[in-house]
């Protein structure tokens, strides 16, 4: 069926449908769509020819996509580079943070050990002092019952 046959053949065409207002329900029409005035049919025919001519011209035109491809590859490379930098940054940040924490923990442990050692030494010194004091104040060289004898022995030795 040619274009003009389609347009001229309808009897229950769109004239009535064209008068529909917003909100009215469209009812399907039974026959082919009549377009009425020949000017309107001519306008649609021109439109069809125009689209066909444009499409044929564009379809047969050789096309190059070099720039697009380059842009895309450049963008892709930039995206990858940015991604790599972000990943490397986050990984190195994580490693540094972990190392820093380990270092702090090691220092804290060393300090704690040092404090414990100092405390132990202090305790040992205090015990020694206490024992020395006890020795000097409380202990005797001989029991008290033997003291007169010891004095005599000391006198004999001087003579």
């Amino acid at each position: 069926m040619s274009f003009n046959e389609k347009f001229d053949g309808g009897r229950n065409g769109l004239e009535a449908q064209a008068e529909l207002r917003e909100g009215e329900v469209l009812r399907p029409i039974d026959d082919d769509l009549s377009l009425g005035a020949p000017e309107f049919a001519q306008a649609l025919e021109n439109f069809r020819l125009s689209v066909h001519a444009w499409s044929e011209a564009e379809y047969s035109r050789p096309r190059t996509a070099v720039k697009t491809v380059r842009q895309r590859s450049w963008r892709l490379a930039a995206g990858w580079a940015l991604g790599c930098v972000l990943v490397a940054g986050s990984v190195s940040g994580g490693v540094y943070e972990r190392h820093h924490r380990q270092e702090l923990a090691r220092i804290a442990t060393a300090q704690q050990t040092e404090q414990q050692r100092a405390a132990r030494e202090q305790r040992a010194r205090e015990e020694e002092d206490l024992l020395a004091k006890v020795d000097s104040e409380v202990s005797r060289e001989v029991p008290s019952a033997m003291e007169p004898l010891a004095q005599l022995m000391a006198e004999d030795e001087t003579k």
Partner: protein
Amino acid sequence: MAAGTVCEPMTKATAEEIAGRELETAAQEFASVVASHRPQIFRFLLSSTRDVDLAETLTQECFLKAHRNWGSFRGDSSAMTWLMRIAINLQKDYWRNRRMQFWRHTQTNSVDMDEASEWLPSGERSAEQQLLAREQVGRVWESVKGLSERQRTVFLLRYVEEQELSEIARATGLSEGTVKAHLSRAVAKVRAELGGKR
């Protein structure tokens, strides 16, 4: 088969040969479908989007999708209708995705109406007739732009691709009555844009 003929089991090599021949036949069939229908699919997508690059991309996608599903094409409808249905769905998906990608550059590469209406076959027309025709085409483009997506699709399939209503119904997945209703409203709008002449 004659009586007494021994039916030998199919060897592996024979099965592979048959499969290879079937694949080759299917590939040839598909190649001929591409060659015969590609310009029409491109034209429909170009008129729908007014964007040459987008129309080319969607045409490529359409045939890629068709190639992937060529085995499942049962031939219930014509290959053209089947391809047109794929193209319409691709176009719908594209616009739906574009609406979601609001952070992207919102302008499309669509050519404006004046540029689109520049294209007219030279024919045997006077300069005045050419000018008049160009003006008419520009106004039709303007009115087509104002149509809803479905109205535009139906309108273009009918008056640019010259498809029958039944074909449009199959391609769009609508009933014929619905197609007529959309078409009549679209024509009414275009007619109103052109001045309501009868």
